[in-house]
């Protein structure tokens, strides 16, 4: 039997996410960024400290469906079609009906670019398409806060770039607040309005960077001098950790 050890994943982490903002949590593996996200989603209870999600506790926010979660592996149910997967949030956790005017699952699939794929099973979709379905599922009911745990980490670079651009568009169209965990500096800078750099063992806030890039950006922004300078600065923060 292996000896059980308790690990302090996070210590003295304090930050707030502005409403309607897009914040990337950037850090090396094991810095506790996924743990942090799970504390916000009420999947893990912190041993100390206070988390306030939209003015209430994480548990209340979860019960009120104020947050959507996108997992690293799309976590689709293989026996459900794309549409049925997006409809899942309406079938569990008590009777849920969409508020009048809220986007229907079909409309959300169209929003993530999957119109026409409603009746496909997950095994018939590519990795990128599965992740699109899972984003549509997280958007059901229009949650004010979207938590994303390295959603594009397992995808190839080309697909990842395309989904990064689409996520910016979805964020602009839905107006939801996004907290996005990643270990890619480029992804963090391109996506977010603010990047929070976490250091490892235990996780602490190493830096907070406001990204001064045009709000309307496409992938070419990554070749600009501003972008390169910001990325270099963030990499410096990551380097100073060791």
């Amino acid at each position, binding site marked *: 039997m292996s000896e059980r050890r308790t690990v302090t994943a996070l210590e003295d982490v304090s930050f707030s996410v502005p409403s309607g903002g897009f914040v990337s949590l950037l850090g090396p593996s094991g810095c506790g960024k996924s743990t942090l996200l*799970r504390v916000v*989603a*009420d*999947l893990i209870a912190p041993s100390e400290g206070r988390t306030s999600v939209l003015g209430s506790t994480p548990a209340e926010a*979860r*019960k009120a*469906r104020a*947050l*959507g*979660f996108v*997992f*690293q*592996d799309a*976590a*689709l*149910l*293989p*026996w459900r079609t794309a549409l049925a997967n997006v409809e*899942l*949030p309406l*079938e*569990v*956790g*008590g009777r849920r009906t969409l508020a009048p005017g809220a986007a229907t699952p079909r409309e959300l699939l169209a929003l993530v670019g999957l119109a026409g794929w409603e009746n496909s*099973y*997950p*095994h018939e979709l590519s*990795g990128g398409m599965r992740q699109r379905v899972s984003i549509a599922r997280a958007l059901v009911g229009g949650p004010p806060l979207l938590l994303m745990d390295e959603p594009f980490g*397992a995808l190839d670079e080309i697909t990842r770039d395309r989904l990064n651009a689409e996520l910016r568009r979805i964020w602009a169209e839905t107006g939801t607040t996004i907290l996005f965990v990643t270990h890619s500096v480029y992804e963090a800078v391109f996506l977010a309005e603010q990047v929070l750099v976490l250091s490892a063992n235990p996780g602490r806030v190493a830096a907070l960077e406001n990204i001064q890039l045009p709000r309307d950006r496409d992938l070419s922004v990554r070749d600009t001098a501003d972008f390169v300078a910001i990325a270099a600065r963030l990499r410096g923060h990551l380097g100073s950790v060791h």
Partner: protein
Amino acid sequence: MSAVADRAIAPPSREAGIKAAEDAYRAEQSRARMRRRLLPAVGIAALIGVWAALVYVLKVPTFVAPSPQLVVVTLVAKFNILMANLLPTAIEAVSGFLLGNLTAIVIATAFVHKKSLEQAFFPVVVLINSIPVVAKAPILVLLFGNGMEPKIAIAALVCFFPTLVNMVRGLESVNPQSLELMKVLSASKTEIFFKLRLLNSVPYLFSALKIAASTAVIGAIVGEWIGSTTGIGALIIQSTYNFDSAMLYATVIVGSAFSVTFFLTITLIERLVIRWQPLTST
């Protein structure tokens, strides 16, 4: 002059070439398909041929082994007797199959819901399973008498274990992120069970059911050996004691034909039920 002619002819000949290649590919495919279907039949025919030749050449007496022709004659002549004896065996096997698997599914559900139940009773199940069927059978005959009940009980017992083990695995081996998703959605335990665990276990269940389909028939036949006057098992014992080898072989053929049909039925149901493929996580 010749170059001009070549250029004029080239495009149609290329299309024709593609068409010819496609036709050749299709012909090759259908030949391969034919071969796949034909070869097993050739194998079986060869086996029967060798059997017939051996019985003929070595002049094997009928009470030791029959010729294939004699078995066919017996199958036709004794068809009514064979079917009359297949019926009770089929009823016992199917009832045992239903009873054993249903119990296994219910107990697996209880195990998954209450870990302490599994820890307490799983060793008991393993212990009972480790007793050979031929040793369990007499005990059940003493308990349930000489009717169909002990045979159903034996068939149920042999089905029970593989289904229980597979079902527990299927209910528990849920993608951890799917489980987290359910928690984020505030799903109740019942919802998680019906919308996630139960469906996740269906492929596992069917792989167990396919094993159970053949073992249930074996269980019923073994049960009939211990004490019965009707059924495939009883007929096997009777024809052995009577040195009626042709009847013995005919009975065995009927028994295994039923077993194969049962297995194929389950396979067919599986194909109708499972339309999805389990995802391997990236």
